[in-house]
């Protein structure tokens, strides 16, 4: 059966050019970038080139890029590193209710250990935090504000420019988890008032297990792990050379394709949203109707349960995901859907469709043909009454 992969927010397939490059590095480059002899210099040159590629893609200086093991580590380094650097002077974290667990759980962990005071701001029905609420939450002991750029579950984009401007005015570091937007949206830290930005290679057709944190020059971040002092002491540990090469190449390619590709995906996404709404009664679009990730369509279907939607679509060849109960052994609907103020039952019936480079109009047509009968069947089984 032909598979249609519509879960690009979870991960993306590695670009063949990236895979080739990484394989070549693994085969041919044996050195440790910290060694001063030829093999080490060769590895160092590759890491430096990748750093340039990442910096160029987001308008940063290469010295402002720190490689990590992925988005989670970048988020941890941002929060923990800033808090540690400000120890004794500032301990406040301001964040939102729809952040990724890498942020929320890190903030709560710091709070549980008495290392931070955490303010979690609510979002509106569209999943947006109010910049004014951020401004009101900042006090003289706030160390960092962390607001994601694009939400992984419902696609909503946050007003990061406005929030960043407020943080700058108040002298507070502003971090944004941009793992869903880097490669998909134009990001330029020369014009965006963002001090720390998390990047994750496997969201833009790079390898898993490698990411980066942009740290604006002058932003104080202490190392979280201790060791050999790599990455100028900001993230110690021997560099994942092939992964870093893959990250750099993937971001270079994504940046060069972005304008055309994101517009193409946004058009398919718009058709998907429009047609699902017209073909399935009582389909609730989650997230902001227009200000959302170009590849993301997310819904809740009353009278259905997300796991049953995902399994049913899988049987028909579609890979999709749900933020609902039972998909991951977790029995509560996702914190994001609940933060939007959705009723618990409605939040159970969530479905996330995220498009990618390989998604075609025919894929969208196939999904649009397969989904309505599945929703109807699950509603028939649950006895849901639906208002058309």
């Amino acid at each position, binding site marked *: 059966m032909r598979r249609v992969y519509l879960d690009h927010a979870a991960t993306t397939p590695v670009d063949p050019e990236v895979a080739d490059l990484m394989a070549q590095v693994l085969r041919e480059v044996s050195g440790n970038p910290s060694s001063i002899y030829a093999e080490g210099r060769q590895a160092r040159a590759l890491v430096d080139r990748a750093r340039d590629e990442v910096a160029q893609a987001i308008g940063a200086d290469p010295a402002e890029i720190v490689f990590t093991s992925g988005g989670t580590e970048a988020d941890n380094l941002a929060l923990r590193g800033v808090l540690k650097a400000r120890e004794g002077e500032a301990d406040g974290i301001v964040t939102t209710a729809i952040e990724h667990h890498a942020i929320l759980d890190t903030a709560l962990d710091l709070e549980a250990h008495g290392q931070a005071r955490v303010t979690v701001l609510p979002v509106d029905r569209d999943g947006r935090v109010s910049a004014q609420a951020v401004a009101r939450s900042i006090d003289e002991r706030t160390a960092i504000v962390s607001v994601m750029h694009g939400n992984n579950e419902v696609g909503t984009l946050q007003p990061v420019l406005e929030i960043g401007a407020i943080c700058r005015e108040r002298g507070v570091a502003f971090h944004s988890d941009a793992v869903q937007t880097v490669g998909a949206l134009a990001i330029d830290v020369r014009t965006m008032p963002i001090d720390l930005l998390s990047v994750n290679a496997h969201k833009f057709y790079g390898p898993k297990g490698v990411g980066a944190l942009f740290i604006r020059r002058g932003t104080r971040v202490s190392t979280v792990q201790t060791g050999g002092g790599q990455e100028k002491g900001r993230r110690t540990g021997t560099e994942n050379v092939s992964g870093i090469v893959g990250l750099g190449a993937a971001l270079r390619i994504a940046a060069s394709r972005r304008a055309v590709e994101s517009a193409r995906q946004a058009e398919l996404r718009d058709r998907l949203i429009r047609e699902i709404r017209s073909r399935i009664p009582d389909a609730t679009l989650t997230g902001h109707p227009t200000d959302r990730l170009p590849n993301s369509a997310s819904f809740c279907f009353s009278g259905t*349960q997300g*796991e049953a939607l995902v399994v*049913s679509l899988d*049987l028909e060849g579609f890979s999709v995901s749900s933020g609902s109960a*039972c998909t991951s052994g977790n029995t509560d609907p996702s914190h994001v859907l609940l933060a939007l103020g959705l009723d618990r039952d409605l939040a159970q019936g969530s479905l996330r469709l995220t498009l990618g480079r390989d998604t075609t109009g025919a894929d969208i047509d196939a999904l649009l043909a397969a989904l309505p009968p599945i929703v109807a069947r699950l509603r028939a*089984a*649950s006895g849901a009454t639906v208002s058309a």
Partner: protein
Amino acid sequence: MTEAPDLYSDAALDHLTRPRNAGTIPDPSGIGSDTNPSCGDRTVITLTIADGRLRDVRFRTFGCTAAIASASVLTELATGLEADAAVQLMPADILRALGGLPERKEPCALMAIGALRGALLDARVRAG
């Protein structure tokens, strides 16, 4: 004792895609329901009893694949049984009929049994 599988069996998936006896009997002998409080899944079973036997058993389930498959297969297992035998059905009977469920999904079978027993009890109360 076989280990619980990680994935759904073909039988469970078949009940998901072709649920048996989904619906509600308009004028039942008994009606029962059960809820899994940890996830909010619910099953309602309605049944008719004639001459001490279950003639018609139907289910409604708001829930995951396992919850739907459990209730669906239970309607097949229960139909035709004497009420006294139906009340003896156990989650293990559902698991056997489905070829197992993923381990963390086994409470879904219990929910279906809970709804059936509720319906049988309701029928007894109604019959006086």
